[in-house]
């Protein structure tokens, strides 16, 4: 295979595939669960995510570039793993479809109450199909260009500086009604998506692991700056009572020929949401492809997109969707930690066995 993902492409891809939709409610979530100056919590979670991706990097190094399927199936028969694989696939397809419907529900709620929900699902599915069909290389290429447009929106933040005041911060840290564990889960879900990179091993160049950290770092910087800005822009109570504070933040932007750019921002954000969805679908497709290698990848794409489509049609309201996203995110965080730990254990056992063999 000639084509390999370059670290530059990869870091952008990783940044794009993290679940950015959480960002819109992130100031409220941090305020709700971490209390005063809750924005600092993102740094702690960032450290946790780094430990998680460190494990992935170690697996790559110890496994010497073998894909995780090769590593696992060298020690454990495939049929034992199939139920676990299916569970992961189910969670990933589920979370992808729930993120789709969350985005659409928010869009309907804020801008477009009369819009047919199903039309959006079809649009997202079409775009996902186009990206999935080309494989990860095509996806990476497209995401680099999409990234430029998403990140352009960050410049709108400059319009908000005049309204920013340090006096809105308090000297209290993490005080108020707090629930650190639940809050950590919520904030962590903003970094989700990165765990799929454990499947990248056969498609990357050797020194790719730095891309993981760089991509994650860019995400963190963006989250942190938006959070910091919101805490200085709104009062603490305001943040607590606003469902999507970042949306309100962008409502204040005004140029001489354009006001209320939150609509534009949220529309462009569809690219990031699309990237997150596609990476989960892609991950599911890879695992399915590993379970049965003889079936054409296009069949799996149709199957996955079909499932995703149907699942996305199930919820009735944003409250429903949020519940589901919460549950599935918790499972996905579980997978994000359990899978690398599991693979690391296998690797240690394998190397231990090898040492014993050598000794013999």
């Amino acid at each position, binding site marked *: 295979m000639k*084509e390999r993902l370059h670290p*530059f492409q990869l870091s952008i891809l990783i940044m794009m595939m993290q679940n950015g939709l959480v960002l819109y409610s992130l100031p409220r979530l941090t305020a709700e669960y971490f209390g005063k100056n809750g924005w600092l919590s993102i740094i702690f979670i960032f450290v946790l995510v780094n430990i998680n991706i460190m494990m992935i990097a170690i697996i790559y190094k110890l496994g010497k570039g073998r894909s995780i399927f090769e590593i696992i199936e060298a020690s454990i028969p495939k049929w034992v793993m199939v139920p676990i694989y299916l569970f992961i696939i189910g969670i990933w397809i589920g979370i992808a479809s729930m993120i789709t419907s969350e985005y659409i529900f928010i869009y309907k709620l804020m801008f477009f109450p009369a819009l047919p929900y199903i039309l959006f699902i079809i649009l997202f599915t079409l775009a996902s199909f*186009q990206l999935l069909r080309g494989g990860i290389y095509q996806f990476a*290429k*497209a995401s*680099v260009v999409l990234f430029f447009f998403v990140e352009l929106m960050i410049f709108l933040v400059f319009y908000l500086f005049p309204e920013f005041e340090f006096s809105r911060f308090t000297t209290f840290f993490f005080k108020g009604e707090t629930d650190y564990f639940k809050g950590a889960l919520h904030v962590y879900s903003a970094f989700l998506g990165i765990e799929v990179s454990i499947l990248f091993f056969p498609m990357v160049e050797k020194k790719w692991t730095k891309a993981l950290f760089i991509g994650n770092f860019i995400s963190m910087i963006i989250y942190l700056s938006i959070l910091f800005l919101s805490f200085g822009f709104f009062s603490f109570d305001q943040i607590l009572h606003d469902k999507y504070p970042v949306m309100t933040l962008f409502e204040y932007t005004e140029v001489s*020929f354009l006001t209320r*750019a939150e609509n534009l921002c949220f*529309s462009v954000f569809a690219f990031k949401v699309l990237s997150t969805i596609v990476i989960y679908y892609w991950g599911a497709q890879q695992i399915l492809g590993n379970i049965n290698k003889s079936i054409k990848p296009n069949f799996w794409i149709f199957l996955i997109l079909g499932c995703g489509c149907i699942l996305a049609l199930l919820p009735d309201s944003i409250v429903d969707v949020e519940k589901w996203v919460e549950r599935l995110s918790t499972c996905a965080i579980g997978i994000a930690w359990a899978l690398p730990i599991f693979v690391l254990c296998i690797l240690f056992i394998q190397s231990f066995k090898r040492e014993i063999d050598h000794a013999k």
Partner: protein
Amino acid sequence: MGRFQTIVKEMIIKKEADSVIQDTHHSNIKDASEKQLSEASFEKTLTELGNSFDLVHRSFNQDEIHIIYLDSLVDSKILEWEILSPLREISFHNVEEAFQQSLFKRENNQEKVISGILDGNVSMFAGEHTYLINAAGFEKRSISHSETETVINGPHDSFNETLKTNVSLIRRRVRSPRLKMIKLSVGEISKTKVLLIYIEGIAKMDIVNQLKERIQSVKVDSLSDSNVLIQMIDDHQHSPFPQFYTTERPDIAVAKLYSGKVIGLVDESPNIFCTPSTFFDFFESSDDYNQRWIIGTGIRILRYMALFITLILTAFYVSICTYHFEMIPQSLLQSIMQSRSRVPFPPIVEAIFLEIVIELLREAGARLPTKIGQTIGIVGGIVIGQAAVEAGITSNILIIVVAVSAIASFIVPSYIMCASIRIVRFLFILVAGFLGNIGIFFVFGMLIIHLTGLTNLSSPYFMPISPTFFKDWMDSIVRGPFSKIKNGQPVHSLMQTDGEKERN
């Protein structure tokens, strides 16, 4: 039993030997008859080329020497000086000495004689031998200004329809033995000549070979233009975007050669194509290089802005006026509402109507002679500008929006790319009318996914941006100073290694 076996064996062996003898006999006869068939004679040539208005047959020396040629393809001066006058004086036996060595060659194969005549040769039949004497010379257009790709500074010559002239225009600019050419022919009937040109050592040979194979695999009866050929050898034939860059300016063609690309010339076509091309090639003009780099860069950025304006401006107007009124600032809202208050249609109908009128005007103006074209301009200007607003069919602001996006679309230097973009933006307008901003962004996303997925001869179409090669940006996204532009060598000394450039 054993004896019986040997008898049978002997019989079989004999039979085989017999059949071998028979076979050789057969093939001998076949060869002879084929030879007879393919051997050139003036009677056969005459019958094969019969019923041609320009066919000339003359005989000399008491019907011992015959010459046959097509009057329309032969230069009459060469014919008179080099062929006819020597023929009148010579005897039958010293035919070969009478002509200039360089001009004639002996050819006995009937098919080759016919194709030689069709190439503008005079065929001469003297006893057993047949000669082809090159006297080609046909009417051709002189080298003139390029009508479609004008520049303000720099060379003004352009290719014409004659392959030889076009090659000379390139040869004059590349005085090097490293300039290599591959001659191919496309078309079962037309046998159109296609020439691939590259500079050895700069161009990648696998691209040359791939292009050659692809052109050889084209199976058609005739080929009329290079623009037709490139559509047949495209990687993605259903894409609305042109994937091979075409130009009729020799200076651009040579610049492409020096940057390691392969160019293709088609006989009877003033356009050359080059490969591997990227999306950004279509936004370059040689004027960018003939000015100071800051101005060149500014103009290039202006073109990319124009691309966005063309694609999105009208669609954005439709979307805002239909769904997102809150995005219009209060001061602007008043004037927009005033101008829209008399219009009975929804914005999408109004916009599509006006866009179609502009397309009609463009198409009508493109095919008309200049003098009538002016009339179209005046009629269009008055009817659309003034009357449509007064009649209350469209609003003032929409006319400005549509006019700006029409002007912006013509800033793209390549007409073919400009036409593609103009068609694609209709999709944007339609979706904006039905779905608003999110629709625009969806189509935009799909467009990006489509464009980044395209390849030209397996080389990515969106090259310096994605896959990203920052150093190449100096000569594609902007026009950097010459010290920053990589000179000549194709893809070395980059951020990434050479092998990576082959990523798709």
